[in-house]
C-alpha cells in the first residue's frame, strides 16, 4: 500500500503499479496511447505526461511520463498542472500532424481512442502547414483492413502481435517518422488472434473488414452482453446489431475469462446469424418443399405429428442453451432425451464433466492459466479447438520474464526491461500432440504421436511423478527421457497446469491427464486441470447426463421410436450419413434450429429458433462457468413476418399442445429456474445473471448507446407510423437508448453490461471505467457463476489404469486421427463468409513417407472408405503426422463424418 498525492488530494494505491495505472484505476483521466494494461509500459508516445514534485513543498516540479513512474509512497503529482497540460496538448498535436483528415470515412470513428484522447487534451485545429507523410496499404486477408496513413506510431500493434500473441508476420519497417507497421509483403495475417489488432490499435490503422461492407458507427448499434458460440471457452462478447443484422463482435471484458482479447473465429464468425437462408418463420413440409405457416398452426401441426407417434425421442445439442436442452428434455421425458454429441464425443465429454465436477481438481480460468509457471498440453491442439487457451498459454510461457524481473526487483509493467531480462527464457510448456501445433514455437519439448502413445506418455509422466500411479511398460529410450524431463519440469513448478481434452477422440488421453494431476496433487502441488470440450455448451449438455446419440439413432432405425425432435443440431455432423439417413427415413422429424442444416432439410416441421443474437440462454464453458447470453435485437421489429423464438419457447408451446397441458413457462426466468430445480448438478445457473425483475434505480439497462440515431426513420420505409419500441419481458435489458447507462462503482452487474462506453471514453479502452483496477476484474465481480469449485483436501488417491497398447502402424490399414481447424472446423462460424474464405477444403492428411508407400504425391486424389461410404479427397502431406495414421479435418464443410480411432483403407485413384 502506498499513499500518493494527486493535485492536492490523497489516494491510497497499490504501490507496485505505475502512476498511469494507479490514476486510471482511481478514475482519474490521463490521456495515453502506447500503454495498455496487458502490454505494459514502454514510454513511447509521451502522451501521459504529468508533473511530479519532490515533496509537498516543491512548487517547481518536473514533467515525467506517468506510465514509466512507479506509484511509490509519498509521490506528489499534478495532472491538471498548466505546464503538463500544455505538454500533452503539444504531444497530441505532433501525433496529429500526419493524420489524414478522414474520420468520416474511417471505420474507427466513433470508438476511436485517438479521437477520445485528442478531445481530452483539447487539440482542435491543425497548425502544421507542411505536407503529411503517406503510406501504401497492404492486403491483410479477409478479416483486417489496413490504412497506414492513420498511424501514430505507438507500437501497440507489434507489441501485441509479436510479443503477446507470438505472431511473426507483422513487423515495423522504415525509419524515423517513416515507420511502417505491416507485413513484409501483402498477405493474410497468420496469427489466429489478429482480430485483436482492431481493438489494440488506438486509431483506425487496423479495422474490422467483416464489418466494413455493412458498416455503421458504434453509437448506432444495439448491443447485448453475449457469450461467444465458437468453442467451449465461453469468451464474453458484445455483438452489435443494426437494421436487423449483426454487424460486429466486440470483446466484452471478463477479468476471469477472456479479458481484452478474443480469437478470430469468435470475432469474425458471426455471419451465420445474417444468412439469407435461415428459417425465419416456422416451416412445414408440403409435397416435398417447405411452406411458411403462422406459429400457432405450425406448432399444432408438429404436435399432431408427435401425437400420431408411439414413441417420441429428443436429441439435444451442445450448441444449444441449457434452457433449450431442458425444454426438450421436459417435452420428451428424461428417458427419451439423448445427448447431441456424436456418440464417441459424448462419452469423452461426459468423462471430462465427471472429472471436473467431482470437485477433486482445481479448474483454471484463462486468467489462472496465464499465471501458471509450467504447462503440460496433452493431446489437445488448443489453437484450433479452444483458441483463446492457446493465447493464454503463450502468457504462461512469457510469465518467466516476470519471475526473472521480480528477482531483480523490476516492476512487471516495465515491458522493455522484462523483454531484455527474459530474452528467450520461457516457462516450460510441454506439448504432446498428434500433429504439429501452432504453439510448438514456445514449447520446451514437443512430442508427436498417435493418440494411444500420447495417452501412454501421460500415464508415464504420472508414474514418474508419483510411483503409485500405474506404470507404462515398453516405452522407448527417447520417450523415457522425455517423461523424466516433463515430470521434473512439472514438479519444479509452483503452479503447474495440465491441459487436455476431447480433441484426440481417445478417452485414455483424458484419463492420463487426470492421472498427471492426481500425481501432482499427491506430491502436494497446487495443480490446475483444464479440459477442453468441443462446443459452447458441451459441458452443460454433458451435465444433463443423457444417453448417447448412438442409442437414439438405433431406436429410430429399429422403429422403437418413430418420432424425433432435434434441437439446434445437425445430425449429419454427428454420425455417418448412412446411419442418419436410415434413422430419419421412417421417423417423423421436428427440428428447431436457426440454420437450414441437412437435418432440418429432412424435417416435417422446422421451428425457426433463435440464435444467440435473437434469444437468451445459459451456457456452461469448459471450466464449468455458467454464463448468460442475452437477446441482441428483436427481428420482428424490422419485418413483422419474422417469427423467431428461442427453442425453449417453441418446445414449451409444443408441449402444451402435445400433452394438452397449460403452458408452464411464460418467461425465460421460468424455464431457467425449472431447469435448475430439476437438475441439481446445474445448481447456480440461475445466478449467472440478474433476472428480468432487476432494475437500476428503477430503470432497465439500455441496449443502445444514448446517441443511437435514426429511431424515427429506420423503419419509416415500412410505415411512417412508428410502433411501440420492442418490449423485453425476459430480461432486465431494454431495446432502447432509454435506461441505465452508468459506470459508477458497483452500479451495474457485470453480466448486464451490453457495451463499453463511459463519458469521454468511446473506445474499448473505456473498460477502465468498469474495472476494480485497470486490467483487473469488473466491479461487483466478473460475470458468470462457477457450477463446480474444488473442495479443500478432496484430492482422490485412485488412478485411472486403462493404459492403451502402443500404436503400431499396420501395412494397408490406417488409423484415423482428428485434425482440428480454427476456421471451418466449427459448424456455425464456418457459415460466415469471411471464415469460410479461410477454411480448408476437404483433404486427407498423410505422412509423406506413407504417401510414398501408396505411390501418391501432394494434391493427388485418394479414395477413402469412411463409415461405409467411399469418398475421394485430395492428399495433403503432413510431415509431422505420425506414420500409420491418416488425418481427417474434423467438421470441415464437405467432409463426411469420420470417427477418430477408426481403421480405414486408402487407395490411390488410378488415372483413367
Amino acid at each position, binding site marked *: 500500500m502506498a499513499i500518493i498525492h494527486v493535485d492536492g488530494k490523497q489516494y491510497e494505491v497499490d504501490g507496485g503499479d505505475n502512476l498511469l495505472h494507479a490514476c486510471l484505476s482511481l478514475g482519474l483521466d490521463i490521456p495515453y496511447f502506447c500503454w495498455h494494461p496487458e502490454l505494459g509500459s514502454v514510454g513511447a508516445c509521451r502522451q501521459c505526461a504529468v508533473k511530479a514534485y519532490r515533496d509537498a513543498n516543491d512548487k517547481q516540479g518536473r514533467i515525467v511520463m506517468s506510465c514509466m513512474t512507479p506509484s511509490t509512497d509519498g509521490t506528489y503529482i499534478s495532472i491538471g498542472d498548466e505546464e503538463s497540460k500544455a505538454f500533452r496538448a503539444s504531444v497530441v498535436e505532433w501525433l496529429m500532424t500526419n493524420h*489524414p483528415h478522414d474520420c468520416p470515412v474511417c471505420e474507427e470513428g466513433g470508438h476511436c481512442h485517438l479521437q477520445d484522447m485528442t478531445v481530452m487534451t483539447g487539440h482542435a485545429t491543425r497548425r502544421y502547414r507542411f505536407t503529411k507523410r503517406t*503510406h501504401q496499404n497492404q492486403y491483410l486477408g479477409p478479416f483486417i483492413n489496413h*490504412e497506414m496513413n492513420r498511424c501514430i506510431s505507438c507500437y501497440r500493434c507489434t507489441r501485441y502481435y509479436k510479443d503477446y500473441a507470438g505472431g511473426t508476420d507483422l513487423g515495423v519497417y522504415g525509419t524515423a517518422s517513416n515507420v*511502417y507497421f505491416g507485413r513484409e509483403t501483402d498477405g493474410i495475417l497468420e496469427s489466429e488472434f489478429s482480430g485483436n489488432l482492431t481493438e489494440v490499435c488506438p486509431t483506425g490503422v487496423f479495422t474490422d473488414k467483416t464489418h466494413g461492407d455493412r458498416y455503421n458507427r458504434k453509437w448506432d448499434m444495439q448491443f447485448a452482453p453475449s457469450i461467444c458460440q465458437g468453442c467451449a471457452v465461453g469468451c464474453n462478447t458484445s455483438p452489435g446489431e443494426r437494421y436487423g443484422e449483426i454487424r460486429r463482435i466486440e470483446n466484452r471484458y471478463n477479468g476471469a475469462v477472456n479479458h481484452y482479447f478474443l480469437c478470430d473465429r469468435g470475432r469474425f464468425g458471426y455471419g451465420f446469424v445474417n444468412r439469407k437462408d435461415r428459417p425465419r418463420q416456422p416451416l412445414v413440409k408440403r409435397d416435398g418443399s417447405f411452406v411458411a405457416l403462422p406459429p400457432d398452426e405450425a406448432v399444432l401441426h408438429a404436435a399432431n405429428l408427435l401425437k400420431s407417434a408411439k414413441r417420441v425421442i429428443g436429441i439435444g445439442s451442445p450448441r444449444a442453451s441449457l434452457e433449450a436442452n431442458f425444454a426438450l428434455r421436459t417435452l420428451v421425458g428424461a428417458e427419451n432425451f439423448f445427448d447431441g454429441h456424436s456418440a464417441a464425443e459424448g462419452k469423452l465429454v461426459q468423462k471430462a464433466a465427471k472429472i471436473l465436477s467431482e470437485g477433486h481438481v482445481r479448474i483454471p480460468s484463462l486468467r489462472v492459466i496465464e499465471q501458471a509457471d509450467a504447462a503440460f498440453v496433452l493431446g489437445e491442439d488448443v489453437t484450433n479447438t479452444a483458441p483463446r487457451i492457446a493465447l493464454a498459454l503463450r502468457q504462461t510461457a512469457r510469465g518467466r520474464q516476470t519471475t526473472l524481473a521480480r528477482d531483480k526487483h523490476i516492476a512487471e509493467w516495465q515491458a522493455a526491461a522484462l523483454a531484455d531480462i527474459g530474452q528467450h527464457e520461457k516457462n516450460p510448456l510441454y506439448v504432446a500432440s498428434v500433429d504439429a501445433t501452432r504453439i510448438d514455437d514456445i514449447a520446451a519439448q514437443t512430442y508427436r504421436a498417435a493418440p494411444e502413445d500420447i495417452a501412454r506418455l501421460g500415464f508415464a509422466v504420472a508414474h514418474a511423478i508419483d510411483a503409485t500411479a500405474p506404470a507404462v511398460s515398453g516405452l522407448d529410450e527417447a520417450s523415457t527421457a522425455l517423461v523424466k524431463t516433463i515430470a521434473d519440469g512439472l514438479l519444479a513448478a509452483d503452479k503447474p497446469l495440465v491441459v487436455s481434452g476431447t480433441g484426440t477422440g481417445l478417452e485414455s488421453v483424458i484419463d492420463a491427464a487426470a492421472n498427471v494431476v492426481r500425481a501432482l496433487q499427491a506430491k502436494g502441488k497446487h495443480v490446475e486441470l483444464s479440459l477442453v470440450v468441443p462446443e459452447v455448451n458441451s459441458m452443460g449438455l454433458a451435465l444433463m447426463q443423457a444417453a448417447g446419440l448412438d442409442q437414439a439413432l438405433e431406436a429410430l432405425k429399429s422403429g422403437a421410436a418413430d418420432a424425433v425432435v432435434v434441437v439446434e443440431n445437425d445430425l449429419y455432423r454427428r454420425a455417418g450419413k448412412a446411419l442418419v439417413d436410415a434413422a430419419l427415413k421412417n421417423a417423423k422429424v421436428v427440428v428447431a434450429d436457426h440454420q437450414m442444416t441437412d437435418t432440418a432439410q429432412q424435417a416435417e416441421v422446422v421451428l425457426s429458433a433463435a440464435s444467440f443474437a435473437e434469444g437468451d440462454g445459459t451456457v456452461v464453458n469448459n471450466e464449468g462457468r455458467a454464463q448468460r447470453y442475452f437477446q441482441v435485437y428483436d427481428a420482428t421489429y424490422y419485418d413483422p413476418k419474422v417469427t423467431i423464438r428461442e427453442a425453449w419457447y417453441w418446445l414449451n408451446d409444443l408441449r402444451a399442445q402435445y400433452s394438452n397441458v397449460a403452458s408452464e413457462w411464460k418467461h425465460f426466468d421460468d424455464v431457467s429456474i425449472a431447469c435448475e430445480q430439476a437438475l441439481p448438478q446445474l445448481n447456480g445457473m440461475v445466478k449467472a445473471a440478474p433476472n428480468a425483475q432487476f432494475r437500476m434505480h428503477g430503470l432497465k439497462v439500455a441496449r443502445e448507446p444514448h446517441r443511437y440515431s435514426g429511431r424515427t*426513420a429506420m423503419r*419509416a420505409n415500412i410505415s*411512417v407510423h412508428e410502433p411501440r419500441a420492442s418490449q423485453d419481458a425476459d430480461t432486465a435489458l431494454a431495446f432502447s437508448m432509454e435506461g441505465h447507462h452508468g459506470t459508477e462503482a458497483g452500479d451495474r452487474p457485470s453480466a448486464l453490461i451490453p457495451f463499453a462506453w463511459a463519458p469521454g471514453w468511446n473506445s474499448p479502452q473505456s473498460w477502465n471505467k468498469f474495472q476494480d483496477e485497470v486490467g483487473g476484474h469488473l466491479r461487483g465481480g466478473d460475470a458468470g457463476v462457477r457450477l463446480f469449485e474444488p473442495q479443500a483436501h478432496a484430492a482422490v488417491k485412485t488412478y485411472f489404469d486403462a493404459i492403451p497398447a502402443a500404436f503400431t502402424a499396420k501395412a494397408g490399414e490406417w488409423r484415423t486421427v482428428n485434425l482440428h481447424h480454427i476456421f471451418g472446423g466449427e459448424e456455425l462460424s464456418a457459415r460466415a463468409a469471411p471464415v469460410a474464405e479461410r477454411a480448408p477444403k476437404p483433404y486427407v492428411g498423410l505422412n509423406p513417407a506413407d504417401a510414398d508407400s501408396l505411390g501418391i504425391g501432394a494434391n493427388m486424389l485418394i479414395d477413402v472408405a469412411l463409415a461405409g461410404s467411399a469418398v475421394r479427397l485430395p492428399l495433403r502431406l503432413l510431415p509431422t503426422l505420425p506414420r500409420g495414421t491418416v488425418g481427417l479435418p474434423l467438421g470441415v464443410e464437405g467432409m463426411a463424418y469420420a470417427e477418430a480411432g477408426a481403421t480405414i483403407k486408402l487407395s490411390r485413384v488410378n488415372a483413367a
Partner: protein
Amino acid sequence: MKDFFAKLVAIFIGIYTNLRSMVMVASHTFRKRDTIQYPEVKPYVPPRYRGRIVLTRDPDGEERCVACNLCAAACPVGCISLQKAEQDDGRWYPEFFRINFSRCIFCGLCEEACPTNAIQLTPDFELGEYRRQDLVYEKEHLLISGTGKYPDYNFYRIAGLSIAGKPKGAAKNEAKPVDVKSLLP
C-alpha cells in the same frame, strides 16, 4: 350641468375617434400591401433559409455523402437513417438514405455536422402532403445534381483515403508515399 357638458365632450370624442379610425383604415387602400397572394405569388426566402433537405454532389458530379452517420447522430429527432456501402475504389456512399420529414424540425444540425457539405437545407418549405407516408424521402428524392451552397468543396481531394483517380499521396497537403525500404531520413 357639469354632467351634461362632460357627456357632450365624450360624444364628440367618440365621433372623432371613429372617424379617425375609418380614415386610417381607408388610407390603407393606397398603401403598399403587407400580405402577398400566396400561393399564386411566392414569397422571398433567404438562401440560408432552413427548408427541405437535399443531398448534393461534388464539383465532379459524384455523390458527396460518404455515409459517415454524423448527420444522423446530430439529428435531435432521429429522423435520418442511412447505411454505408463502398464502391470498388474505396469511396464510401450511402446504400440508402432516408429522412422522415414528418419528424424533421428543420433545425439544420445535420447540415452543421456534415463534414463533406453533402447535406444541405434549401429554401423550399412547401412540403405539405395528404399522406404522411409521402413525407418519407429516400435517397432518390433527396439527391440533387448540383453542388448547392458550396460549389468548390470536394472532400476526397483533402481526405487521405485513396479512391480511383486519387492514389495515396495525391490529396491536398500530402507527400508522396514513403518508400519503407529506404533508410534515408
